[in-house]
């Protein structure tokens, strides 16, 4: 079945928000922030970060955003990805640079995201090279790509051969909740893709092939308890479709890019920021993912996380491009913080691996 796109990319709409400068202006709107939202770096001071700065622990995850091209245009996408974003895709040269770095340094995990990274012509070659280097590869797969075109239907087999861990978005086990965020038809295609993954062993006990789902709220509310959601998803997906998976990661929507656009359009920006602030959990600060991750953009620049990447906030205190990669300097940098960071510290915290505290 084909997907009916939920929206258009901000870039295609020529929205002001496609300019990261404008997004940062909204997030740092002075009157609003001074009155109601304390600066994030101030907020973390009593949480054990007395100088208002966060430093990395160790770089364990090399997260690479292969590009903005995607077969979907989800309403909340923080990448502003879509089928129209053909220009922003990682070149072979930058992938080669990544491999050189991965060869040189002991960074155990390569986490590949996008867009739909599988649409990048270098994807399979890069994954196999990482596998040969003994790296643990995670692919952030939107699921529908697998059934979108016959040329992608053998992806599950390819993933299995390279022992790739699959982490896939499925905001709900109900079609309506899923399609309202991701586009009509996405749910049915996602279910078919999950069944194909299960068929080669993904998510099955004893197979060693990990299949994780990502839950994120399909609206302006915050995620509930991850373990409870996981139990519901497991029961319902098994009951309705015979689908199995390993872990469910509950992730908070970040107030940037298309979700920021959604918030502003629906007059919910302040309410949402307030709910993030009300749910601020000092105990979640130490677990934010930027402490063990380095994020690389399609054009080879380095960021603290995929969110900072989308706001074009490059790493500070170290070379900012793959060509100047210096692990020691990166591990000693100060992470660039801003008001969107409240998205990582609300409730049980939020990261690419879900909740950060129990």
């Amino acid at each position: 079945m084909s997907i009916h796109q939920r929206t258009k990319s901000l870039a295609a709409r020529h929205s002001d928000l496609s300019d990261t400068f404008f997004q940062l202006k909204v997030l740092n709107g002075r009157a609003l922030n001074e009155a109601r939202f304390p600066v994030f770096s101030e907020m973390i001071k009593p949480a054990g970060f007395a100088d208002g700065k966060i430093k990395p622990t160790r770089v364990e995850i090399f997260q690479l955003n292969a590009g903005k091209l995607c077969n979907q245009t989800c309403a909340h996408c923080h990448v502003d990805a879509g089928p129209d974003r053909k220009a922003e895709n990682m070149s072979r040269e930058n992938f080669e640079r990544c491999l050189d770095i991965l060869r040189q340094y002991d960074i155990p995990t390569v986490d590949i995201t996008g867009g739909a990274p599988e649409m990048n012509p270098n994807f399979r070659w890069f994954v196999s090279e990482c596998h040969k280097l003994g790296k643990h590869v995670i692919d952030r797969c939107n699921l529908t790509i697998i059934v979108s075109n016959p040329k992608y239907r053998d992806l599950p087999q390819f993933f299995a051969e390279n022992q790739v861990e699959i982490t896939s978005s499925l905001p709900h086990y109900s079609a309506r909740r899923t399609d309202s965020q991701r586009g009509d038809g996405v749910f049915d295609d996602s279910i078919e893709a999950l069944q194909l993954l299960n068929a080669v062993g993904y998510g099955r006990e004893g197979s060693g092939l990990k299949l994780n789902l990502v839950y994120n709220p399909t609206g302006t509310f915050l995620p509930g308890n991850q373990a409870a959601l996981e139990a519901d998803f497991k029961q319902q997906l098994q009951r309705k479709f015979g689908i199995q998976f390993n872990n469910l990661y509950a992730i908070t929507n970040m107030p940037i890019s298309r979700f920021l656009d959604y918030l502003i359009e629906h007059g919910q920006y302040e309410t949402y920021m307030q709910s993030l602030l009300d749910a601020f959990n000092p105990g979640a600060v130490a677990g934010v993912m930027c402490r063990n991750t380095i994020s690389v953009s399609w054009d080879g620049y380095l960021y603290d996380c995929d969110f900072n990447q989308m706001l074009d906030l490059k790493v500070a205190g170290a070379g900012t491009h793959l060509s100047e990669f210096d692990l020691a300097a990166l591990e000693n940098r100060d992470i660039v913080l801003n008001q969107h960071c409240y998205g990582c510290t609300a409730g049980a915290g939020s990261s690419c691996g879900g909740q950060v505290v129990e």
Partner: protein
Amino acid sequence: MSKKHYFDPEDLKKFGNIGAWQKPMADKFFAWYGEVFKEGALTEREKALIALAVAHTVQCPYCIDAYTSGCLEKGADEEQMMEAVHVAAAIRAGSSLVFSTQMMNHAGDLTM
């Protein structure tokens, strides 16, 4: 001056202030309330759905708003939420209709 209309959504945010006039009772109420909605033999999602159904029965706009959000947060979808409201509605309807047995009994006494 107080407002000229009832049920202002902003008032829901002031719920915590009820302690200003009777703190020990309010503290006990909120502590108990918190305990009630924790995961137990029922999941948090199931409890939120029950709360939503009861909110419709007592027709409290604050509770309806609060537990519409609560149900979504706990991972319920529209189908589950509407089914919960139907359960509440069915009990309301049934509890009226079941009294008709009394009407029928009494009418039986009165009529030939």
